Structures are given as structure tokens and as C-alpha cells.
């Protein structure tokens, strides 16, 4: 997990791949929405209060609060097949 960073730290419009998801009350919902290991995610825009951001994932745009996005670790390369 050396190169993995939290999803909230990824600049807008930068494609990254999910490396890991920390267990949290919403991790089940995140997985159902397609936030699984190896999935490509692109942050699209941040909301006016900077408390949440919209992400492009598996063909859909999902808004996540930063506290929830912080549980998702990503890297610039797809490590799911390592």
C-alpha cells in the first residue's frame, strides 16, 4: 500500500484505481455501488461546501462525502491482478 493514497487526495479529472477499502459502516454500500478493488475511479467535481465530491465509477456518477471517500485507498495503477 506504499503508493496508495486516499481518494479525497486525488486531483479532479485524474483516473485512479481502487487499491483497498477500509471497513466502515458504509463500506458495504460502496461495494454495491461498484467501488471494488481494481475499479477505475475519476473525481469529477467538488461541491460548494467542499464536504463532498462526485466520482465517475462504472458508468455512473456517485456523490460521496469526504469522510466516506477517505476510507477508499487508490493508486495510479491497477494493482488488482498483482
Amino acid at each position, binding site marked *: 500500500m506504499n503508493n496508495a493514497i486516499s481518494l479525497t487526495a486525488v486531483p479532479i479529472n485524474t483516473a485512479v484505481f481502487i487499491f483497498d477499502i477500509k471497513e466502515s459502516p458504509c463500506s458495504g454500500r460502496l461495494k*454495491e455501488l461498484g467501488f471494488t478493488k481494481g475499479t477505475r475511479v475519476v473525481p469529477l467535481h467538488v*461541491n*460548494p461546501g467542499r464536504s463532498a465530491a462526485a466520482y465517475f465509477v462504472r458508468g455512473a*456518477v456517485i*456523490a460521496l462525502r469526504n469522510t466516506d471517500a477517505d476510507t477508499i485507498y487508490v493508486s495510479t495503477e491497477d494493482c488488482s491482478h498483482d
Partner: protein
Amino acid sequence: MTKKILLAGNPNTGKSTIFNALTGKHQHTGNWSGKTVGNAAGIMKYKGKSYEIIDLPGIYSLEPISEDEKRAVDCLISGDADLIVVVLDATCLERNLILASEITKMCTNVIVCVNLMDEAEKKGITVDTDMLGKMLKTKVIPTRARSGMGINELKEEIYSHNKGCGRCCCSTECIYKSCVLSRQDITDNRDRKIDSILTSRIFGIPIMLALLCCILWITIWGANYPSGILSHFFNNIEGFLLNYFADSNIIIKGLLIEGVFRTLSWVVAVMLPPMAIFFPLFTILEDLGYLPRIAFNLDNIFKKAHAHSKMILSMCMGLGCNAAGIISTRIIESKKERLIAIITNNFMPCNGRFSSLIMLATVFISGGMFASIKVALAVTAAILSGVLITFVISYILSVTILKGEQSSFVLELPPYRIPQPMAIIRRSIRERIVYVLFRAVAVAAPAGAIIWLLQNVTYNDITLLTHIALFLDPFAKLMGLDGYILTAFIIGLPANEIVIPIVLMCYTGNSGLIEFNSLAELGNLLRMNNWTYITAVCAMIFSLNHFPCATSLLTIKKETGSLKWTVVSFLIPTATGILLCMCANLLLRLI
């Protein structure tokens, strides 16, 4: 025997549109996740056979989190369906396939319907539905439900489906890579450009407020003309009826014409036009896909208020009808946050109440240039104060009787879709005009009879209405109102639409219906009865903050299953209203 067919799938894949196309029913549709929160049933007849079609709320998996999802999953796993139609969104198959493969692994009586094929084509996404069928080991039907394409094929497949399919054993990634021949790497450029403005840090919230104000202004400006025509029409009818029944007894002339008919006239002439105009305008925003963007824009404020951001969706629904708003809180996963959303929903003025707000605002904004814009700004301010009070009460509840961890905010932002004007007009006529006319007959007619009786039955030479008004007057005066206004709010418990008509009835008494050409002219009647701008402001505050109507209270009881929370939902807005009215009255008199 009628076969039972379930429509299942992720939220916002067009299940309700397919349901309507199959059954000819008019189930609510909207461009956001969570529009359908209860199971809807309808009958499809095809080639002499009858099928019961059940439209389930959208789900992401077979492990439900929120109340609406629980209802859908319970129905799916109960095993009493003859066939499950899994509806997929062709533009978002990668995600939709997760649920589809879960269902095909669990059940064998499944067919798959890939909807929104037209949108997928526009986005350059090509789906090989034959390959998808082979990999899912079931029949796959491509559809464009909004235009009706593929619906006949779907009906035929439902009709001819008589054997089970195999169980899917491929991973979703494998199915997706094999069946989606060209994909989009990033979301639609058009949507991104719109979002960069509508959810931007600088423009996001100002645009939201401007849209609200603009909708209200169109409503106020547009309602004047039909209100005047309806008033003239009903006044003529009343004149004709009174002449025709000139020699009739008091029951016909008084109770039925001056009581029941006049109240019905007020409700239809004063309340119906704003409702009939606001509703389609609001539906345009809903169908565009703007509502989830409001939740996204306001997340930070909801977070600070310890409330769930999805609450804004139920608040928006509350603008149409609070009972509908309360039901729509089912999309909120946390029980605690759902209760907060239910208790505070009444702070959003429903369609019936903001018609009252418009009417009341005209009292202190009379005539002149830009009057309708000023009224629109006043009503916008009133609605925003309702939002502010919602935040304050939510915060107080979350640190007192509804303590608990704040849950996450995860919400899908749907693609923008062009609304269908004819569908919106049809829906508005059906859901607003017919509904209001029905309520006018069911609720306003008996209320009109009661008011007339109270106005005409005397005790110690004073009418009963005056007795009640005099009894309530001292307390009402403290709130900046008068006894008649408070009486109207109490008698108006069954429906908010009748409160202002009852106030007008109380003032007009036996003087006959006053014909008016615009809503602003009605303000003159109130001014004649000692209304000042303070009375209007306090009446607006109390209209915004008082007990929910009877339908909403029954809905709260049903949704919470608790008398305690129903009582709390009654007391909190009422106490807030009384307190705010007293403060406003005191402050405005000091100024």
C-alpha cells in the same frame, strides 16, 4: 390464474416507466434514485392472459440498508413471483450487472431487460444483448421505455416464458468486458459542463435560489389571471343560484350555497391556480435530474446540522405534499436520521400552504411595479426560513432525543434528461387539478358547512364562530393574529388548502362573495378586517410552522408505527410556530 411478475433493478433504471408502459398505469417517475419507495402493482393483459406486475423500489444488492430496499428485497426473496424482470440501465451496465448476476445466481425464473438503449447509443456505448443473454443464461430484451421500443417484445417474452433459465456463473467484470463493445471512459461531456456550473462553488447555491425564486414568480404571475376568471365564474354561478333558490329554505340558500358552494369556490379560485402552475414547473426540475444536485450542493450544511443530505429530497417532495415527503424519507438508511426527516418535513410548505403564503404576501406587497417579483422574493424568503428552521430543529433533535452517529452520504447523480412536456402536463392535471378538486369536495365542502353553521347559529345573540374567535382572540393577539385566523387553522386541520378560504369565509360572513380580478385584490378584504403587515407576517410564519395536516399525521403514524413520534411531529412545529409568531409580533411592534 394471474401470474405475478416483479420488476427489479438498480434505482433510476426506468422500472416505473416500463411498469407504466406494461400496465397503462401512471406510477410516479422521476430522474433520481429513490423516487419509488413502495411496491406498486398493476395488471397487464396480453393475448387473453392477465399478469400482476409489481414495480419494486430500486436496490443495489440483495442486502438491503434502507426501508424502501427492505421492501423490495423481501418481495424478491419471498419466492412467490412467477417471473422476475431485472431492468438494467444500458449506460451503466458495469454497475447494474452486479445486481443482475446476484439475482440470476439466486433465481432461475429471470429475464433481463436492458433499458435506456437510446441513451447508451448517444453516449457511444454498444451493448451485445445476445452475448449478454448467453452469459447470464437468460433471455435479454433491449428497450427504450420512454418511446415504447421493445415493450411488445418484453410482453411477448413475459407471455411465452415458461421454463427456468440456467444459473449465471461468470463474474460481472467478465460479462461486462464481453458484452459492452464500446464504452465511455468518463461521463458525458454535456453533463459535466452543466454540473460544472450547477454544482460550482460560486454559482451552485445562487443558481439554486434563483431557480426557486423564478419558479415562484412564474407561479404568482401566472396564477392571477386564472384566479380572476375563476372568481368571476363562481361569483356569477353563486348569483344565479341565489336568485334561482330565492324562495328556498335556509338549508339550501344558506348552508349549501353560502356555506358549501362558496368555500368550494374559494378553494378552487384562490388555491388551485398556483398549485396547478407550480407543480409542473417543479416536475421539470425533477425530471431534469436536478434534485440530487441540490442534495450535493447542500451536503455541508446538512452535515453541520447533523442531518442526512438525502433529507433534501424528501423536503423537495414535501413542497408538493408533506405526506408524500414523509413517505419518501424511506430512502434514508439510518432510522434516527429518518425520524428527524419525518418530524421536520412539515417545515417545508406543501403546495396548499405556499398558495396561502402567496396570498398572505400580497397583503403587504400591494400593486405597483414588480409586485409579483416582490411577492416571489417574500415567498422564497419564507421557504428559505422553513429550510433554516429545519436545520436548527434537526440539530436540536440530533443532540437531544435522537442522538446517534451521523451516517454517510452516498448518492447517485443521474444523467440530465430532457423532460417530456406532455407527460408533465398530463401528470399535473391528474395529480394536482383532479386531486385538488377531489379534496375541495371531500374536505372543503364539509368545512364550509361547519363554518356556515358556526356563523349562523347564535348563543346569547352572538354567533358560535364569534364565541370561538373571542375565546381564542387573546392568545391569537399575542401571536400577532386574531381569533378568526387561529380558528381557521384549527378547522383547516384536514387540509391546508382550506385555511385561507376559511379565513375569507369568516370575514365575508353573509356579505356575499367578493369578486376579484387578481390575488392582490384579495388583500384588500384582509386589510378591511384590520390586517396589517404584522398580521400577514405572523400568519405566514404560522402557516409555515404549525401542526401537519390530518393526512400527514396519519402518514407519520403509519411510517413510524408510533403514536409518540406522531405526537412529537405535531407538537414541535406547533410550538415553534407559536414561539416564532410571538417573537415576530413583539419585535415588529417595537420597530
